[in-house]
Structure formats: C-alpha cells, structure tokens
C-alpha cells in the first residue's frame, strides 16, 4: 500500500521565454553617479549588440513564482530518503549555507592581498589538515572542483611522478566495477585503460591483478569500498603488487562515507586519492553541483601538486607559486571555496567521534536494508556490505520487470529511486545507499515499499512497467530526446505554434 504520498495539485508553468511580455522587469539599479557613456562611441558600432532576442522579460513576482513552481516539481533530500547508491545523499545542514554566505568570506576576492585573506586561508588550511587526518595521507590539494576533476588531478600527479622517474608508462588498470569517471579520467590523462575483471565475490581479483601489473602500468584506480559496497579486503596486497612494479595505487574516495574514522586509505597502501566533499562531507548536490574533489597524496607525490600550495609564512598563510615540479593548475584560483567552507563546517560540527559515529550509522543502515530486502531481491554478491548494498533485478526480470521499472515504481511510493543499472558488473543492479542521516522510520517505509513492489511484480507486472503513475510528468521518452535533440527553446514558428 502506498502510504507515504497522496495526490495534490501542482502548478503548471511555462518557460520563462513563453512567460515574457515586452517591457516587464524585475530589477532596478541605483542611478549612475558618473556620466553615462555612449556605448557605440566607446566601443565602436560593430562591437555593440542589438537587443538580446528572446531574453526574459518578467516581473519580480513572476520570477519568484516561476522558480517556486519549478521547484515544486523536484524531489529532494528535504522531501525524504534519497537512496542513490554511490551518491551519499545525506542531509545537508543549513548552518553550512549560512556560514558560506558570511560577507568577509563570500566577498573575498581571489586576488585580494593575502594580509586581508587570512580568514579564508585559515579555512582552507584547517580543512586540508582535517582531510589529511581523515584519510591518513600526507598532503591535500583543494583545487579540484569535483570528483572527476580530482581523479584527473590525481592521475596527472601519478604521471608526473613516473615521468620524473623516467617513464610515464602507458596503462591504467581499472576494475570492471568502476565508475565511468575512472576510465574517462585515465583517457583524459593520456592513458590506455585496461579493465580488471572482479572475482566472484565482487572483489579485486588479486591473481588477475598480479598478472596485469607490468612495467607498462602506471596505476590501479580502485574504489574502496568498491561500487558493490564491499571493502576490498586485499587492498594491502594489491598495493604491494603495484608498488613492487613501480606502479601506484589510486583510490576513488567516493565511498569514504563507509570509512571515515574506521579505516584510513593512507594506512592501507593508497598513494593518491580524491574525496567528494559533496558526498561524504555533506555539501549539497544542488541538482548536480557544485562539488569539490580534494586530492590527498602521500609525500612522494606532494611536489607535484597543483599550484598554488597553501603554506605558512612569516606573516601567516600564503599561496606558494614556486613549485617547479607541479603539474600546474587544474583550474583558475584555488578551488570551490564556498564548498570548502561548508565541508569544514560539517567536520567541525561532527568532530572526530561524531564522524566515526556517522560512519557506523551509515553502515548499519545499509546492512539493515540488506537484511530486510534479501528475502525479496536477488543479492548477487554475498560479501559483507559497508555503506551500500547492491541487489539485482534477477527475480523480477523473469516477469519482464527491470531495475529501471522498479525504480520508477518507487517514485509512486514517494521515494527517490536507488541508483539504477550501476555497477555494470551486476545485471540489472539496484544500488541502495541510505546514508547515516536516515532514521529507522524512513528506512522501514522504504523497505516496506520495496517489498510491496516485489509483490506487485508478481501480481501485476504491467503496473510496475508503466510507472510512475502519480507524478505530474509520467514516464519520459528519453529515446526521442536523444534521437531528435531539442536543446534550447526557440520562438514558435507559424506551424509549430498550432501544435
């Protein structure tokens, strides 16, 4: 039975361009306190544009209604559980939003004198230190803007070290369970990708690894816990194998929410890793970003970190640009500072013991779901789960219902779906990550919904296959979207207007 949601009316809304009327405005500027300048005279006629065709013209109330109405079409953490595996959709504390807007921080210009930037620099320094302690690594750069950007930075560091040692090598090894950004990153850094098959426990196959690690291999990129939510129990061994051949161990830290305070990558052989502050450290996803992907390294890689590096000088913190071995910049300025503020606020709020408790709760929640859903869904890999659990749609597929259908049906039950069809080594994966911030009531409701859906698959598979039924937008035709891409609004032509 669906008990978590009811049907209610929801406001429609046109696109801004369709809502516009000539002359409407939502702004007012102060009067100029200097003489106006004739743009055509100052810039030359050819450099001055005509009016921007189609650009919005709405009043302030129309603007706020537009975005309020749009917002009501979204599901979010603030509505309920968001069990997207690999995404760590935990609660985003609102105090973090407040501190990120503190004037002296939000309005700090990246080029303002360092003497006037000590507050901002201290935020960064304190975060770097905390992340080093949490990961057990020696140095941290905060420059990368997201996980994938961190990966690229990390692999470039590997490359730079190996190059300095004489040969950047050719290949990056990547388990077949890896996230797509891993191989894409390797390619972006100029490496060939070699996939490593997982063993039947869903783990890194040590024998296969041993065989694959040649003098051509620059590094192994491994996610730990891996994308099945399983801790790579042979991680120390893997590191040894790699190190023996002069290769490095890169860890994708997207799943650090399973480890904080419990185990540190720096203690189990990792040479370089990235973190996703927008996962483990609670900064909000914002519908797709901004994130932040700090990279933590062992000291051997430290000389190569992007410029500038934060250092403590005579007059306080400063940016050090004199880093001859650095790979260079990976982005302008110093990183997604506003996201760093939020992540540090989170770390300060939880503190050392609190962070560990969060990890414990995250792992407990995942295991609770696993235990309750195991009778109803196929568990392809029975290894112990950490912060997430991955089922397959094997049983439901027999009725023609796939993981994507189950996910859509979950929407009718008032939940955001789990991650669908990833990792790809599981046929029809249901990847469920509850995070520590869900309470038992919400977990139980989720479990009940999943069990109920499993029942519906038996009783009425069509119901599930055509879900969702209760949303203002029913199942979306993604195929047509890709086949005949319409990527922007255009003013209606005579013909189109009649449809």
């Amino acid at each position: 039975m669906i008990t978590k949601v009811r049907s209610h009316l929801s406001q429609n809304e046109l696109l801004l361009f369709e809502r516009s009327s000539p002359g409407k405005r939502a702004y007012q500027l102060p009067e100029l306190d200097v003489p106006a300048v004739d743009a055509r005279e100052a810039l030359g006629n050819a450099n001055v544009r005509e009016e921007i065709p189609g650009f919005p013209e709405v009043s302030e109330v129309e603007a706020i209604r537009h975005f309020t109405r749009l917002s009501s079409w979204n599901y979010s953490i603030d509505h309920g559980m968001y069990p997207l595996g690999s995404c760590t959709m935990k609660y985003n504390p609102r105090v973090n939003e407040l501190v990120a807007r503190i004037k002296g921080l939000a309005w700090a210009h990246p080029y303002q004198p360092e003497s006037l930037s000590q507050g901002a620099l201290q935020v960064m320094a304190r975060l770097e230190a905390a992340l080093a302690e949490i990961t057990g690594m020696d140095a941290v750069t905060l420059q990368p803007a997201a996980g994938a950007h961190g990966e690229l930075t990390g692999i470039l560091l590997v490359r730079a070290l190996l190059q300095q040692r004489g040969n950047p090598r050719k290949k990056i090894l990547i388990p077949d369970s890896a996230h797509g950004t891993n191989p894409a990153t390797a390619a972006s850094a100029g490496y060939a990708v070699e996939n490593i098959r997982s063993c039947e426990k869903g783990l890194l196959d040590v024998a296969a690894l041993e065989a694959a690690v040649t003098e051509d291999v620059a590094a192994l990129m491994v996610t730990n816990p891996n994308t099945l939510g399983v801790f790579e129990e042979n991680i120390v061994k893997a590191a040894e194998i790699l190190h023996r051949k002069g290769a490095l161990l890169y860890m994708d830290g997207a799943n650090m929410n399973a480890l904080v305070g419990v185990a540190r990558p720096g203690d189990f052989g990792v040479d370089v890793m990235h973190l996703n502050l927008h996962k483990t450290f609670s900064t909000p996803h914002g519908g797709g970003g901004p994130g932040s992907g700090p990279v933590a390294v062992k000291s051997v890689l430290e000389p190569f970190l992007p410029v500038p590096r934060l250092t403590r000088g005579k007059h306080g913190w400063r940016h050090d640009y004199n880093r001859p071995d650095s790979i260079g910049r990976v982005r302008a300025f110093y990183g997604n500072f506003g996201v760093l503020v939020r992540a540090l606020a989170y770390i300060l709020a939880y503190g050392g013991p609190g962070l560990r408790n969060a990890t414990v709760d995250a792992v407990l929640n995942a295991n609770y779901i696993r235990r309750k859903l195991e009778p109803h869904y196929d568990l392809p890999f029975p290894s112990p789960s950490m912060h997430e659990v991955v089922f397959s749609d094997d049983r439901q597929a027999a009725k023609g219902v796939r993981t994507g259908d189950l996910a859509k049906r979950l929407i009718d039950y008032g939940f955001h779906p789990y991650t669908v069809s990833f990792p790809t080594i599981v046929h029809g994966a249901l990847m469920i990550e509850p995070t520590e911030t869900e309470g038992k009531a919400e977990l139980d409701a989720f479990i009940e919904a999943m069990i109920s859906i499993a029942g519906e698959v038996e009783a009425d598979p069509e119901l599930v296959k055509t879900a969702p039924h209760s949303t203002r937008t029913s199942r979306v035709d993604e195929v047509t979207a890709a086949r005949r891409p319409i990527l922007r609004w255009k003013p209606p032509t005579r013909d189109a207007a009649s449809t």
Partner: protein
Amino acid sequence: MLRDCGLETTAQLFSHLPEAVKLKRDLDLPKGISEYEIVEWFEARGAEGANGYASFLGAGAYRHFRPVLVDTVVSRGEFLTAYTPYQAEISQGTLTHIFEFQTMICQLTGMEVANASMYDGSTAVAEAAAMAVRLTRKGRVVVARNVHPEYREVLATFGKYQGMPVVESDYDPDTGRIDLQDLESKVDGLTAAVVIQSPNFFGIVEDVKAAAEIAHRKGALLVVAFTEAVSLGLLEPPADADIVAGELQSFALPPSYGGPYAGTIATREKHIRQMPGRLVGETRDSRGNRAFCLTLSTREQHIRREKATSNICTNQALIALMATVFMTVYGKQGLRELAEQNLAKAHYLAGKVTPRFSGPFFNEFVARTIGKSPEAANQALLEKKVIGGVPLGKYYPELADSLLLCATEMSRRADMDKVANEL
C-alpha cells in the same frame, strides 16, 4: 536495528575488515561543536577579511550586485538538496531551469547549443580546446597571450598530458588586442584551435571576426573565451566563433575567494556530439506532455567510459541556477542597463588615470602608475581602505609598471577618485 542485522555491537559491522587496515585510535580532530559556535568561528574568519574595503579587482572575478531573489530561489531545499536529475519524472524543476539556462546562454553568445555547465571558465576553455582537437582531428592549440593567465595555465596542464601542444600568440602593445599578424603566423595546418578572449584579460574587446577568419583559413576552430559575462549584455555576441567558453561568476556569484563559479560551453549544433558535459533536451512524457530530460549521454563518461568526450560528471548546476535567476531578474533591458553602467564607471575611472592600451574596453583596463610602482600605489590605496588593481608584472614582465583595474556598477565615484589620486 543492530539486532535485526544479527549483530550485537557496532564493531561487528566492521569485523570483516582486515585488522591491519582498521584505525585503532580516534581521529585526531576536536569533538563536535554547536551550530552557534560554528557560526561564530566562521564569522571571526570573515572578520579577518576585507570587509569595508572598496575594491577594483576584476581579472576573472567580478563584484556585482546580487539580486535578493537569487538566494531566495537557490535556498529552496527542492533545488539545493536534489541530486543530478537522472530521474526525470521527479526532477522536472531542475531539468526545466537547465533547459532555460542553455537557451539563455545561446541567446547571449549567439551560439546554437550550450551545455548544462562546466566547473568554471578556465576548465571550460581547456575542454573547448580538447573538443576542437576531437572535431578537427588535429592537435595544436594557439592561445592568445591576452587570455587570462590562469586560464592559459590550465590549458597548459591539460595540453601537456593530452598530447596537445599549446603555442601562444602575442598581443599588440598599442591596442592591447591580439596581434593578428602574429596570430596568422602561429596558426598552421596542424592547428585545431585558436583560443582568444573577449573582452580579453586587459578588458579590451577583440576583433573576433578577424580571428575567426585567420583560424578558419587554416581549418582551425575559433574558441572565444569570456570571463566577464556582464559584457554580453552590451557587446556583439561572438557569433563567428565555433565554440564559446566562458565564466558566469558575474551572474550572481560573489567572488567567494575563487569559487564555486560556473563555466559554460556553447557551440554550433553540428558539433554537439563532441560537446563535453550534460545536456538537457525537450521531449514528451507518456501522456504527451512536454517534459525535459538529460540527453545525448552517449557522449558522457557513465555510458562511454574511456571514450567519453570528457570525464566531467558533477558540474555546477546550482550555480547555473543562480545565473539563470540573475538573467531572469535583469532580463532583456536590465542586462543592457547593467552593462552600460559598468561601461560608464570604468570609463569614468579610465578618464582619470593613464590607460596603457588604446583598444576599446568594457569594465576593465590596464593603467600605468606614474612615479611609483603598481605595488606602491596599491599599498597607498590599502591605507585608504581601497584595494587597487592587479599588478601585471607577475604575468607580463613588460607590463611591470601597470595595473589591471576593474570598475563595476558597485564602484563608487568617491572611491574611484581615491584610485585616481594614487595612480
């Protein structure tokens, strides 16, 4: 719950971890503090900043008024705490505003398609160059020296490891614009992309058409970068470019010590298959209603893995929303009026100092300091609670006597007069 899992202690949750990897001590971090102490701590850090100073810094990070509506909208949990809109049926809010964003970027830049955002302007430019490499199947990139120095550094980092040699072309020492002759000489048949910026790092409006002709003549693509999005309210859009890549920080983002900002890439329809980043497209739902969804994801890492156009996954969606709200609030009239105010302020200031270049400029320009170094001028200004300009010697030894000054609608005449007095 522990009992439901057949466990007695939470330690058992981790009993399968090899002993060697377990952390046997507490993290060396202080224990948690309350919300009030957190606010206090960060307020103290903020107070160590530049509150109360006027500032004439630009150079890729601009000070513009932020309409109150922006934070009102992005503070809504429905936007703030949603993930990437993979489940279209419960993400139409996010999908719709991204579609609007893509449209507005096209309207502003004169391009046909734009993506859902990149990390920032600098990575957008590097990705644009890589995109040109894929499109032309050539490898070389020529970048103008008056492109933002940090953008060029990022491009160099990308280039170095992707087998994409990057060559710089010079600027005209009189006008501050690209030296077209030098550019012509640097672009060859192996060149994939010519990268210029307009307004360039010196604030000067470039001759995009001329650069396009040079690039196209050799079969290269022209990438036009921008760092000051407000300029697009007034300047002719770079419609001769093949790819436009820029930074949207000016659209409602406070400087925030360098981030988060949002990059954008826009291009022609024919190039979309090589476009990096997410795209939202219009479609229908099963009942025939208009709907939006992420599309053309066969370009992306989660489908194509090592063959993807980029490794980007998380982008800057909420920042793009801020920019969208900003563009909505200002709208057609407002963006122009805003740009005109910037123009007027910068020209007022320029009229009181000694501009270095003769090219037409928007809200930034290079000024010579007379009788003292730029650093000394800045120091004198600091004492008057004014942060001056960016000394250029660090990036351009030949401009060691010059500052890059920026004036926006927020600059006050009285503060500009202070600058004039010290330069």
